[in-house]
Structure formats: C-alpha cells, structure tokens
C-alpha cells in the first residue's frame, strides 16, 4: 500500500469515530431521532474490509451502518441530513440512521430486520453473476444474526448456487445485550459456515491492515468463481447496542481491555513507526472535524421534506397503483 492509501484508511476511521461521537451528542440534543446504533470500536472492521473492494463490488449491511456508509464513500453531509430527517438526506429523509444507502457507491443499505439483508445479498450477487460481471458482494452482519433462519437459508443458497458473495460476520460478542455464548451453540461464528461447505477465515478486527489482508484473500477467492467465502472479524463495540443502553451486562474491565487495543490508536502507532509524522495525522483530524462541522451545518440548515413527499416513491412513477392524497 502506498502512503496515500494508508493515510486514507486512517482518515476514514477517524471520520467514523468523530462522526459517531457527534451523532451521540446530536441524538441527546434531539436532532437525531429513532433508533441509532454506533460503530465506535468497530472502525477497523468496516474500513479494512471495504478498502479491499473494487468500486463495482457491492456492500450491504445491517442497522449499525454509519461506519460502512463512510467506508463506502458516502458524503457525511448526506448521511447527517438523512439522520436529521431532512429532504437532502441520502434517502430523502425516509430511511434514517438504520437505513442509509447510496446506489452510486454500491452501498445497498442499511437494513434493520436482523439477518434479512443476508438474503438480499444473495440476490445482489446472483444478479452480477447472471450478467457475467466479476463484481462480488460483501455482506456484513453481526454475530447475533447468525442465529436467525435467513443466515442459514442464505448461506446454503449461496453455496448451492456458487454465488459471488463474501459473508462477513463482525463478531462484537453481543447480540443486543446478550453475550453470544449464552445464545449460540458455538462461539466461533465461522463454524456455522463449515456446515455449508464454505471456506472461512478469521482475523483481529482491531487491526485494520489484518482485516484488509483477509478480505483481499476472500475477494480473490470469490472473484475467481469458486463460490462464497465466510470471514469472521473479531471486534468490539465500545458503546451499547443502541442509544440509552447503559451496558450493565458487561464489565468496565472488559471494555478497558478492548479499548487498550483501540483500532485507531493502534494504527496511529503503526503509522508513526512507519515514519509518518504526527503532524500529518493532526492535519487529517482537523480536516475531518471541519468536514463534520460542515455536514452538521448542512443538515441543520436543510429543509424537512415537503408534506407531499409522503406520497412519493411508494410505487414506480406513473404506476396506476400510486397513492394519492
């Protein structure tokens, strides 16, 4: 990787971290509504994995989607405006925090029914294979989603049909408030892929370059037409499942242990050892802060959607099924 690429990984992770901290504040101020799930702690997982894709490869994820949206290149302005429920948001204010998407970045959402998007991913992958495109689909989900029927139906179909899909489990140890070992027969999620004859790999999700390396390997395998691949990224969310979760179900010691391996701090140290200057990173931090301030200002000043917007986008334009006031 060249210097610019390394700094780009750093910048994306910092953008996610600082944006999530802002989101937390804005949620408490009532600027952002609904359910919101922060990605803090998991930055290296999303950034590392997505950095291994080509621009025509698909990314789809669950409701903890802010980080992957940034990794896929969505403009912070459009993300922030969406969370503010504004007309200028990436989904015109109709999706919110859990349903970010941008088709121009091949970022297919943002889906809030646990596991359902794993089924959608098989369809995305099928369509590319059918058109004889070499695009692959990266489907992200949490450890909690491996217990739902969709996961098993989708992995089985992908294996049976040799679909070009990388299933990426971000194992952050908890499904909502429940530790995975209490609700799963196995604690290594990749064992579940073995049942479908799928090759798998695992990596330290706090190390962005490690994540990138295993994802590159997985994508190469899938793109060569050998069928789907399963990745387990071991990671940790510092915050609760969603806002208002006080995290009584885990110890401070556990949180501190993971924070000691902070993905951004670790990568910063790595870059310094590689000869990068602290000033280079400080400059990035400043640029990101400005970018986020600008995004928040943009979101704040943008108008809410017109009331008539409620009737749009339900059916195709001109469909006789279109609903009118």
């Amino acid at each position, binding site marked *: 990787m060249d210097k610019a690429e390394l700094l780009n990984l750093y910048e994306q992770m910092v953008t996610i971290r600082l944006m999530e901290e802002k989101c937390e504040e804005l949620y408490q101020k009532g600027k952002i509504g609904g359910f919101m799930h922060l990605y803090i702690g998991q930055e290296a997982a999303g950034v590392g994995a997505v950095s291994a894709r080509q621009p025509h490869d*698909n990314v*789809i994820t669950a409701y903890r989607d802010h980080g992957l949206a940034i990794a896929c290149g969505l403009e912070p302005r459009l993300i922030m405006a969406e969370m503010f429920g504004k007309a200028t*948001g*990436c*989904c*015109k*204010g*109709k*999706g919110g925090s859990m*349903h970010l*998407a*941008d*088709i121009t970045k091949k970022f*297919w*959402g*943002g*889906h809030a*029914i646990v596991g*359902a998007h*794993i*089924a*959608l*991913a*098989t*369809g*995305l*992958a*099928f*369509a*590319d294979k*059918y*058109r004889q495109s070499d695009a692959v689909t990266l489907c992200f989900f949490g450890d909690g989603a491996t217990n739902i*029927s*969709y996961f098993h*139906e*989708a992995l*089985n*179909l992908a294996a*049976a*049909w040799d679909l070009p899909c990388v299933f990426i489990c971000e194992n952050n140890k908890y499904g909502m408030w429940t530790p995975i070992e209490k609700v799963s027969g196995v604690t290594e999620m990749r064992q579940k892929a073995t049942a479908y004859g799928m090759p798998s790999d695992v990596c330290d999700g706090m190390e962005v370059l490690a994540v990138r390396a295993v994802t590159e390997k997985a994508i190469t395998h899938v793109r060569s037409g050998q069928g789907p691949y399963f990745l387990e990224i071991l990671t940790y969310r510092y915050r609760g499942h969603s806002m208002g979760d006080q995290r009584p179900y885990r110890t401070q010691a556990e949180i501190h242990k993971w924070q000691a391996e902070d993905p951004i701090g670790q990568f910063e140290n790595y870059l310094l050892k590689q000869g990068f200057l602290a000033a280079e990173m400080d400059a990035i931090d400043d640029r990101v802060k400005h970018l986020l301030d600008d995004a928040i200002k943009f979101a704040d000043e943008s108008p809410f959607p017109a009331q008539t917007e409620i009737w*749009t*986008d*339900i*059916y*195709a334009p001109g*469909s*006789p*099924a279109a*609903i009118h006031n």
Partner: protein
Amino acid sequence: MAITTMAKAIAQAMAEEMERDSRIVVWGEEVAAAGGTYGATQGLQEKFGPTRVLDTPISEGVIVGAAVGAAMNGLRPIAEIMGINFAFLAMDQIINHAAKVRSMFGGQFECPIVIRTTSGGGRQLGATHSQTVEHLFAHFPGLLVVAPSTPGDAKGLLKAAIRSDDPVMFVEHATMYSDKGEAPEDVNYVLPIGKSDVKRSGKDVTIVTYSKMVSISLRAAQQLSAEGIECEIIDLRWLRPLDLEPVYESFKKTNRAVIVEEGYATYGLSAEIATRIYAECFDYLDAPIERVSQKEVPLPYSGPLEKYALPKVEDVIAGVKRVL
C-alpha cells in the same frame, strides 16, 4: 383464440415475457427440472436453460429475499412460493423488504419482482395448506396483488405483473390449474394494472368477487336468472390497487350488493369493500350489503366438512336472496 388451461396460460405468459426481456429469471421449489408442482412452469427450463430457470432449496425466506436483492440489482425475477400458506415464512421479505425498499431508501431502489403463489381450499389438505389469505398482502402500500379468474385473464394479468416495476403478488387458485378457457395468442396481450372487469351484466344485484369465486358466482347467477333475478358480477382482478368504480356504477343501478370471498369475512376483503360502497353510495342503498365467505374455522380435512366450510353456489344464492 386458442383454448388452453390455466397452467398453460401461466407458463405461456412467462415464456413470452422471458423471450422479450433477458432480465427475467424464474426460481422456486420444483419450478425448473419438474416444471412446477402444478405444471405452471412446464417447459421453461428446457427453453431458457438452467441459468434463467432455477430450482431453489425449500427456503421461502431466501427465495423471496434473493428475488428482492436481484431486482434491486437490475433483474426482474419471478419467484414461486408453492403455496400461499408458505408465504407466511417469507412474510418479512414480502412486507418489510419487497414493499419498502423503494420508499425507505428514497426511491433509489426498484423491486420489480413477481411472487407467484397458490391460494385456496378445496383439496382436502387440512388447515395449514388450504388458506385463502391474499387480502392480507393487499393491506400493504408498496405491493400489488392480483388473482385471475380465467386462463385468459391469467395470461394478460401475469404479463402485466411481469412488466410492472413494482412487486406483485400473483395469486393463482389451487383448484383451477386445469380450468379451460380462451387465451389470446397475441404476445402483447397485457391487461391493465388496477382495472376490474364486469363478467356478467344484470340489473338486480351487484356481486363483487374475484378468483375462483367468480365462477361460483356465475353459476349462482345462472340459477337465479331462471327465477328472474339478474346479477351483475364484477371481477376485481386486482386486490391492490383496488378498482371499485365499476362497482359503484353497478350499485347505483342495482342498489344491492353481495360480496363473495373465499377467505374469512372478519377483517377481510369484504369488510373493506362494503365500507367503501357504504361511503360512496349511501344514498343508493336499498338493503344492507351481504357477505358470503368461508366459515370461520381452520379448514378440516374431511371432505364433507371442508365443503361445508367453503362458500358454494347455494351460499351465493342465499346471499343474493337476503338483499332482495
């Protein structure tokens, strides 16, 4: 026009559309090698090959989910759910995804899928395999729901469903696959979306119905005609979007209506239609609107009991007589 069966008309509609548009793919349980459990996909795999016509695992959630994903990514899948009772296993994909991906993402994604499925009782399959529940899906904005009553309609309506840029539940009746009727051979025979059809004219009572209950109502009307009672029968064809203009027009002439549905009346299709007629045609009302429907029990296996529970010709005749 050629005489054909319901199953053949359905297969023909798909074959013609697949010929026209290479983005159309067909998948479901037993649809490919076997040609469908009811023969409605007969010949498709031979004609279009295994990359376009695929057998799936018995996995309703991913049958629909993969169709939604493929549709978002540019294809136009036709996914078969063998029975509407199994569509309950795909309810989340149909309602939370197919019906919502366009609006929830601000119009970025399209979902041009057709979910072909089979509804209805009358085959002694017991309570879990005999339900008539298509109206449940018609509850949700974002979906279209259509149920044909003749082979000709099936062909024209399925082609309309396939050409729709929005998700359509295409609901066939389990006992009608070998019904015979005329079906136009014109490849551009496409019926309009959201238009009902007057299947019989009459001046005395308006019967509003769809799918198999159209033929049951026609038989009832024939018997009533012998007694001098003339029924007008309106086949809704589409449960969403619902076209009640011809119903209002008819009601303003007859001042009496019977709504015939195979499913349960409680919270059912007839409740919706009756409400709308009451609101639109209040000044024309000469009798309370009658509903003919299935008895509110899980359908039993035993032949005579099942027959007793399902609406039949005599029930429609009795319903008509109650409004006169």
